[in-house]
């Protein structure tokens, strides 16, 4: 009686899809920004209040944008890898410090001034980079998260590869891994640097 085999056949179809699904990473979300120009911004750098920095300053170079914050637990995991990578490769990494000052850091019932927020963010970020190493050529402060919105930041950390023309070529949501760096990012960067 063939009809009694139907559930079994159906189930094995399901298992095949589940097995293929296991090989995929649901966090790897294609961004509508890939192959689009990186959104422009002008933000204060971590170093001081005089200097502003934007993607236009990186024109003509292939570079990487890494979104991070000191409160982000996963960034702690990723950081040593970035430090090592920055020493071994000639690829500038720009840090985007994302919403460093969280609402609960502010005294209840009141708002901090932008300058006070910047000072607090600098204090915490510099301490963090001093103790863990600094992989970034420059870090900019996105305190209100507006640039994060333009870039569609989904969770911290995130990493973008941007080419010489300022076009986003790759986006990763979540923690960088040595495999991703070796298999995806380095080949992509080499190819982009040749063109």
């Amino acid at each position, binding site marked *: *009686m063939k009809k*009694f*085999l139907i*559930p*079994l056949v159906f*189930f*094995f179809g*399901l*298992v095949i*899809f*589940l*097995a*293929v*699904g*296991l090989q*995929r990473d*649901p*966090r*790897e*979300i*294609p961004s509508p920004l890939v192959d689009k120009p990186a959104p422009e911004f002008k933000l204060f750098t971590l170093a001081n209040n005089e200097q502003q920095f934007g993607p236009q300053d990186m024109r003509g170079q292939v570079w990487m944008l890494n979104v991070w914050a000191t*409160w*982000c637990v996963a960034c702690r995991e990723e950081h040593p890898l970035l430090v090592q990578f920055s020493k071994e490769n000639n690829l500038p990494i720009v840090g985007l410090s994302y919403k460093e000052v*969280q*609402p*609960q850091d*502010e005294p*209840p*019932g*009141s*708002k901090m001034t932008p300058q006070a927020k910047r000072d607090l963010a600098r204090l915490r970020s510099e301490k963090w980079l001093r103790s863990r190493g600094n992989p970034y050529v420059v870090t900019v402060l996105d305190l209100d998260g507006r640039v994060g919105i333009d870039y569609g930041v989904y969770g911290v950390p995130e990493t973008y590869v941007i080419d010489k023309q300022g076009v986003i070529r790759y986006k990763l949501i979540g923690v960088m891994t040595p495999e991703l760096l070796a298999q995806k990012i380095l080949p992509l960067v080499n190819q982009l640097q040749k063109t």
Partner: protein
Amino acid sequence: MIPELGHYALILAFWVALAQGVIPLAGAATAQTAWQAMAKPAAAVQFGLVLLSFIALALAFVGNDFSVLYVSQHSNSLLPTIYRFAAVWGGHEGSLLLWAFLLSLWSVSVALFSRSLPLAMSARVLGVLGLISTGFIAFIVLTSNPFERLLPAAADGRDLNPLLQDPGLIIHPPMLYMGYVGFSVAFAFAIAALLSGRLDAAWARWSRPWTLIAWVFLTFGIGLGSWWAYDELGWGGWWFWDPVENASLMPWLFGTALIHALMVTEKRGGFKAWTVLLAIGAFSLSLLGTFLVRSGVLTSVHAFAADPRRGVFVLIFLATVVGSSLTLFAWRAPQVTLGGRMGLISRESFLLANSVLLVVATGAVLLGTIYPLVIDALNLGKLSVGAPYFNTVFVPLLTPVLLLIVPGVWSSWKEAQWRVLFHRLKWVALGSVLIAGLVPAWLQMLAQGDWTPTISLGLLLGAWIVGGSLLHIVDRLPKPGRVPWSYWGMHLAHLGMAVVVLGITLVKGYEMERDVRMGIDDTVSLRSYTFELKTVQEVDGPNYKALRATLDVKQDQRVVAQLQPEKRHYFSSAMPMTEAAIDTGWSRDLYVALGEVVEPHAQTHAAQWNLHFYYKPFISWLWAGGLLMVLGGLVAALDKRYRRAASQKDSH
């Protein structure tokens, strides 16, 4: 030392479970009674060992032993003791241990209450349970050991996810798992019946109370989860069609179909193959749910850090258990005899129609849940399936199921008459149509909200079930003969379903929300209620600081409630948590959540906050209906029929 003992007990439990799985099944196949008799003591020993292991982990949590990796990841010395205990199942490893513990609890219960079963049958049932347990304990020991040490020990733990620090969440996972794991008993009975080749009414009678109790736990667990989401997530929702919620809904739908099909098999000897398939399906869906949650193939609000080894292990386990049982089914089912003849209009036909519809509904939920995965596997891109899909397919599929409840209850077995049914139910039908038309019109006149077809449909279904069931009770009571418990159980559960349907209809049709920024002494109105913000203060909790707003709720100038929503900042977490304040009533909930501090008022410079207000009419009917269903299931499971069957067998 204690964690090592726990680990050791778990490894021993693995070998005992393996013995419990292999020896009695081999004994049943070769008719060796001594081997079959091994099943019960093995189940008892296995239970003792897993219990020991569970206690060891609980002691590590309660005693703040942060040299255990899992404890340091999910607990904190500031955490209140009750949450430290609940943190045992706050993460992946511990919730698997809970799974294994509950499985051994079900096994030992089967061993205790199966004295009326023939030895070979109980040996096969316990053997199947032992094999499942072997797989699960192996999964824990090989890929997810909760007793792994962290040396040097952490000074303090990372704390339990603040979202899980809620009384509802202490009992939600155990209840849900009791349901999931409980279906393993119905599954084991079905496999045992297939193995023995005796798929008869006795099999259905034995497994029915077990299935009912598993279904009761699952219903309670789902209801509790939904209530927790409503209470804790702070945006007034109660069901999100999240993959993990779907993973619990699918076995529930199958289990509901199974309970009804078992009745037909027990009473009429019909649908035997179908019932066995449902029993295999209900447990397979529980395993699939475990796979979806634990492997990380899907992202959801419940997603857990994924380890590829774990996903592969669960998938192989799933393929082995379900694949082998479906193969057994394909091999043995063709030999099953058909049951008694049934008419087109009969209780059997209505029950069959409903169980098919429930299975189709499960298929629709399964499709929506794994569709993103299938599309990704076929390299067609990434997408997610949301509530609009589920609402679109689920409502049309469940509408006939709910409609057929009433004729199903009223029809006799074998053959019923259309004319008699029509004659009996015409007034109920007319009354339901009137309610479905008039109530929304009346509410619209009172400016409570606009009419939509869904409101009328929901009211029609709810009124139809309530009317049909109550009329049946009124009709039954004067007749002679004792009314069995299962009769009351059935009506309680059906009425519970109607109450849930009415609650969903009214809350979806007439809910209201407002999102406003307020300063002290500002007021906002929702329907006939006025909310006034009195104070916002800072308060200290055991492991958090909070901002607490106090609001007076007035109706007709009288204060009817005081609400205190909070915004909590747990010391261990960057994310602020919303603690909504809810004033619950039988006909409405008032729900307030405190949002962010916003910029001070432009002119007065007074502080302002964002507040979210919800008016949720009849939402408490959802949980009340769920409780009625739970009660109905319990009453039905305690029916004397099952106990009498047991004592008769004893006296032989």
